[in-house]
């Protein structure tokens, strides 16, 4: 109850004035908390990849998460040639299974999922407050939305794909509206827009969980390349205990 009141207070203050460092850190924690689900998670993701001078490609995948254990699966189901390809994150390692070779390969954090411009963290639990230090940059407007602009810099020793982020957080509902990702040198590499959020009640969290239903990612270096991720059929009920194993993914690719 105290926590809710504190968050409500931060929310009220945040709407009124620029945030101090502590409020900024609390805001980022709030952004994480709103998206976090202490239990299991399942959804269907549709990924549309558009590359300059190429025909767009559409992928369909199923995403499974067990946030309490930091486990994660993306299993591609369409198109036919990608079906069975799977990513599994266990013990802080990201593995990829290629059904054409029947082999597992260890992948890095920066791995582009299925060769698209989407990354593991686009589908995974939000950990911004754990991975980044936040600095308040000011207020801004994004269309009809009033937003807090918060600069995030990777904490020392933390493995992230992008060291610098600039978030535009909706002042009203504290969801991310826009996310600019820059390289270590400061060059803008990706801009992601989050035009639609939905909330689902989580029985394990005993509260609502906010899920970005649509993410539009634009490649800022290779202008003209973009990715649209649609997250549908989200289900927060418990998953099979033995789901997050290599054997399970292999069985699904047969």
């Amino acid at each position: 109850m105290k926590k809710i009141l504190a968050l409500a207070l931060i929310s009220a203050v945040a709407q009124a004035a620029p945030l101090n460092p502590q409020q900024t850190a609390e805001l980022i924690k709030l952004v994480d908390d709103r998206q976090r689900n202490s239990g299991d998670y399942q959804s269907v993701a549709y990924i549309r990849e558009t590359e300059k001078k190429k025909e767009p490609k559409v992928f369909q995948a199923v995403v499974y998460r067990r946030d309490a254990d930091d486990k994660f699966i993306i299993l591609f189901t369409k198109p036919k040639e990608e079906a069975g390809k799977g990513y599994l994150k266990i013990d802080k390692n990201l593995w990829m299974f290629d059904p054409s070779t029947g082999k597992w390969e260890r992948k890095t954090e920066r791995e582009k999922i299925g060769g698209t411009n989407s990354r593991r963290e686009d589908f995974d639990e939000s950990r911004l407050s754990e991975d980044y230090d936040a600095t308040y940059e000011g207020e801004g407007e994004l269309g009809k939305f009033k937003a807090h602009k918060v600069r995030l810099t990777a904490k020392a020793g933390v493995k992230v794909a992008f060291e610098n982020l600039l978030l535009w957080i909706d002042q009203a509902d504290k969801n991310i509206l826009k996310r600019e990702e820059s390289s270590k040198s400061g060059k803008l590499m990706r801009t992601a827009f989050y035009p639609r959020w939905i909330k689902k009640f989580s029985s394990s969290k005993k509260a609502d969980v906010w899920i970005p239903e649509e993410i539009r990612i634009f490649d800022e270096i290779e202008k003209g390349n973009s990715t649209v991720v649609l997250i549908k059929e989200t289900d927060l009920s418990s998953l099979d205990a033995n789901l997050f194993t290599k054997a399970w993914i292999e069985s699904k690719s047969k």
Partner: protein
Amino acid sequence: MKQLLRIAFRNLFSHRGRTLVLGGAIALVTTLVVVMLALTSGIRTRMIQNATALSTGHVNVGGFLKISQSSSAPVVNHAAKVREVIVKTVPEATLIVDRVRAWGKIISDENSVMLPMSGINMESERSLLGGLSLAEERDYIEGSKSSAVHGSIMELEKTGGIVLFASQAKKLKVRVGDMVTISMPTYRNTYNTIDLRVVAILKNLGMISSFSVFFHHKDARTVYDMAEDTTGVFQIYLPDIAQVPAVEERLRQSLKAANYALMDKDPNPFWMKFERVAGESWSGQRLDVTDWQDETSFLKWILDIFGALTFVLTLTLMFIVTIGLINNMWMSIRERTPEIGTMRAIGLQRRGVMVMFLFESLQLAALSVGAGVLAGVLIVSAVNALDVQISSEAFVMFLMSNSLWLNARPVDLAMVFLVLTLLLMIGAFIPAYRASKMKPITAINHVN
């Protein structure tokens, strides 16, 4: 024996027409074999020259640094100490240079391409790279007929520049002076970028140049987020390429003795090892000792194709020519059956008859193959003297050179002469043996 030699020669001479046709065919086949071998050898020599200038030393000490199990960065830590071991172990080295290795995406306004890149110190690499030719505008600008060249590779003495080859510039649609962005993960797996200006575009040198891009070692360290005392690879150049296996083994022993962990031998270039290394469960630093052949293994198939083509062509033509020779021998034996009978009757032994026919075949084979080798050498010399320029990109890619260059090595010529002569002799053995088995009375009474 001299008598038999003379008889064999006179017989060849008396059937001049037949001898010339068959001898000509043998000479032609030999010439083809010599030219094909010279072409393969030329490609191999060019490949060594280009590869050792662009992407590898004769022997290399590179390595991977894994700060976590899932990472793999082509980094050698504490480079000064590693260099010390190399200098002590290979005192005969003519040159040791170190390069920062990188694998990333080069992005222009029009296109992007993933490539292995080398961060170089131009001052120490002047002798290796200084002689590379600049590409003409028509080599990389679609539709251009201009032979103008721009920029200079020596601009890499300063930071902020990048040197591309014509095929890469054409794909990226860039010219000298244009800006490109390099995007790659640092060795800590975080994305980083650097903007560089194209300071020179070089002439293509076959497929290997498609996998070579140069920029300043300081820029490479910046984008890779590497410390000063780190590098990517030490490239070691030897006075004689035949020393490579011995030096490689010596280096392995010395580095092991100096407590460096070594990677298992994997005959592939460094940029083909990222996934494998990332998948291995060790972390920390491991050094990788390779030779020029390992680093150019992705080009080996070209040599294999030419080698296989030469082999199949030689075998097919040799089969046809040997059948021709056997047929020629049968005709000769048939025509000379009464003569064989007479010679046997006046005391020539069976072995003498066989030797006589083998001499005939030997003379024909040696003269024809010799002439073929000579013709082959003349053709090779003429082609090299003409300095035939290759305009087709596909041919440049396969031949590893902008001009047709053939290399007729004396050892290849000697081998062609001996092997082809021996094969033809073997082909002649059966008819000669059959001729020696004739009974004198049957042979004398033989009516043609």
